[in-house]
């Protein structure tokens, strides 16, 4: 009888596992404490990361004010440092395109690259632009600041000269100010929502429908990994998606020697999130990793969480051989970029196929048509 019940159970499982496609709002098929995982995400990772980023954006704002009040090389260097700091902490924030960030399209307004320098020049000269327009996403954010403080000229004195120019200096100052104001405002809005109602909404939505927080954050995580870390930072410059390499399509192109640091920061943040590591500490909590451990997900005789961590580590090791400037790397030996891409790609399969299958989460984004 027990056996019969057993096989009945297997049949039921089979039925539910085979009939896929339209997942309704039914509860998760396991007893993992999804709510505890969401609490850990919100309280120990997302909100603290945003708070740190917000602090760095405030510092960027202040450095901008100092530079625009007195445009000189010393203040330019200080502004650059503030920009670098904020850009690095952004790498721990950009993947959370959920809630207010999703509504505002936060990531696209903060960090599209490459930027359109021609359009930025036109905006400055005409003083007519709408940074709220979707079409202006490649005319603002960190990439536009990169152009404004690193890309206008080679020598610092010549960059400063743009801002002190008797005719057009004020236009450069106001565009720079508008860029930073907008980043500041968007960040304030996103953080305020987490500090307000959204944290409870996020944590409370712990079911397993397509619109539940676990499903959404898992999709957001993988989308960011695939589109922004793998493709944006490495694959596109390395020419994986086209017939040629693009040495100018790297992050922080004008700074020149910063693209690897930004890549590493993002890679670290993504692996830390996977492991549920608290922001700014070595403590860990419930996470995708512990969820996989709970499900005891085995792939080809190995622990899936371990496979994923090993692959994160392998990607990091491979990337460690890259030049600080990905532009330089693409020019000198693009094969190392391609090797890094290949290692990153291996985890797409582990995350998007194996992990999501274990969690019974459906992929909610589509690959662009490409036409």
């Amino acid at each position, binding site marked *: 009888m027990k056996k019969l019940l057993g096989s009945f159970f*297997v049949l039921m*499982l*089979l039925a539910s*596992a*085979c009939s896929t*496609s*339209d997942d309704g709002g039914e509860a998760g098929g396991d007893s993992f404490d999804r709510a505890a995982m969401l609490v850990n995400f919100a309280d120990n990772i997302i909100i603290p990361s945003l708070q740190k980023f917000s602090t760095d954006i405030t510092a960027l704002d202040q450095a901008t004010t100092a530079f625009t009040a007195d445009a000189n090389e010393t203040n330019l260097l200080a502004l650059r440092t503030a920009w670098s700091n904020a850009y690095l902490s952004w790498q721990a924030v950009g993947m959370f395109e959920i809630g207010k960030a*999703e*509504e*505002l*399209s936060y990531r*696209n307004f903060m960090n*599209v*690259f*490459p*930027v*359109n320098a021609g359009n930025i020049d036109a905006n400055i000269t005409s003083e007519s632009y709408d940074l709220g327009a*979707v*079409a202006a*996403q*490649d005319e603002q954010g960190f990439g536009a600041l990169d152009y404004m403080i690193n890309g206008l000229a080679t020598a610092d004195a010549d960059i400063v000269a743009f801002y002190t120019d008797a005719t057009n200096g004020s236009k450069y100052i106001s565009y720079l100010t508008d860029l930073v104001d907008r980043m500041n405002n968007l960040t304030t809005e996103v953080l305020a929502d987490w500090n307000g109602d959204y944290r409870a909404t996020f944590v409370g939505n712990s079911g397993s429908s397509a619109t539940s927080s676990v499903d959404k954050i898992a999709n957001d995580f993988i989308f960011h990994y695939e589109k922004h870390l793998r493709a944006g930072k490495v694959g596109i410059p390395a020419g994986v998606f086209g017939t040629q390499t693009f040495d100018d399509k790297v992050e922080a192109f004008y700074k020149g020697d910063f693209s690897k640091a930004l890549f590493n920061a993002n890679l670290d943040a993504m692996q830390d999130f996977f492991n549920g590591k608290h922001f700014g500490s070595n403590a860990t909590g419930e996470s995708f990793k512990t969820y996989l451990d709970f*499900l*005891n*997900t*085995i792939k080809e005789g190995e622990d899936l969480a371990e496979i994923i961590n090993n692959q994160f580590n392998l990607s990091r090791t491979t990337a460690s051989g890259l030049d600080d400037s990905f532009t330089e790397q693409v020019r000198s030996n693009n094969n190392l970029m391609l090797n890094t891409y290949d290692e990153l790609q291996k985890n797409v399969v582990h995350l998007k196929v194996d992990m999501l*299958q*274990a969690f019974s989460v*459906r*992929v*909610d984004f*589509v*690959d662009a*048509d490409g*036409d």
Partner: protein
Amino acid sequence: MKINHLLKVICLSGVAILGSCSSDDDTPDTGLTAPATYVFERNGETTVSFSGQTTRIKMGEEILNAFKTETLDEATIDAMFAHVEGANDFSEADLNASDKSVRSKTAASQDYFSDNVTDANAIKAEFDAFIKGQVDEVFPNWGTTAVAGTPGVIQEAGGGSDRYVNAKGLELNQAFNKGLIGALMVDQALNNYLGVTILDQTNNSRADNDNEVLVDGKNYTNMEHKWDEAYGYAYGTSANTANPNPTIGDDDSFLNKYIGRVEGDPDFAGIAEEIFNAFKLGRAAIVAKRYDIRDAQSAILRRKISEVVGIRAVYYLQQGKNGLEAGTVDFASVFHDLSEGYGFIYSLQFTRNPDTNAPYFSRTEVQGFISQLMGGTNGLWDVTPATLQSISEAIAARFDFTVAQAGSTN
């Protein structure tokens, strides 16, 4: 966990078992086996030929490029569309030398248009109007930012692609491209070459095939060739035309591409194989003079290729709807999706329901959808998610798929 693996295995074998039991689409045991690839020979020489289809697909590709070359004038693109032998319209000498033309085969099938030149001419004129609109309205505004009521360029989110739209937000190149899938590829394949009028009745085709009377100077019978011409509209530019599925979706911008796209949606995985198998088996049936089997394959092709059009129409409407419902609307992406959707909706009038021998949606019904889509003062700038949903549901209701299945690619 191990049980996951076990389930995968069971699921897979379940699919295999179900697949082998349910045979409603397949012809019951016929004693006829299709070859592994689309290779048919007589006296050691191939009998397969569809160079005219390959030519028209290539001409179509060049016309699509012309839509994005803002320095061209209307007469130049018109001439590409209605090519005459020897005219220097294309970049490829073979195309210039050809006596084939895209326009002459647009809305030109035996079954639908031989006694309906009224609609045929109206449809050709609609394609002419896409060209004219692009040249008169969009090209002069290539550098203008498009807003409601003003043609021009609009950029996708994330520093994405520039989309060039008319005053109503429609990308005319997409309307032309996706509309041509219906008006040329689908109409010619399903309503001309796979129909009994062409296969059996024209030029003594049936009797000649029975007696293996070959076309003058050729190695094929008329009927064999007609079937191949249908095949060519799906696979005419494939990397390997005898075995096209390994690159399905990558070989053109027309029917092949969207068979590939639908195949990529797990809800419809297997459709590329079904279509290819039906083409092979039908062709083998012609060689074996088993016209019952041939016609059964023709019915499968009509159903499945029509489904490709229906699925993509709903897919793009749903993508557009999702885009409109986002917190920050990326109008360029939405318009791109809806312009593709426009073309696939337009193509519905050329589909063929094998149960009724009529299109899944009549021209009048298609015009109704189009006016819902474009009917606001500023066309796509004004369309609502509710309208997109209602058109999606109306389309899916007449096919054997759901809005949810078509609306995702996962």
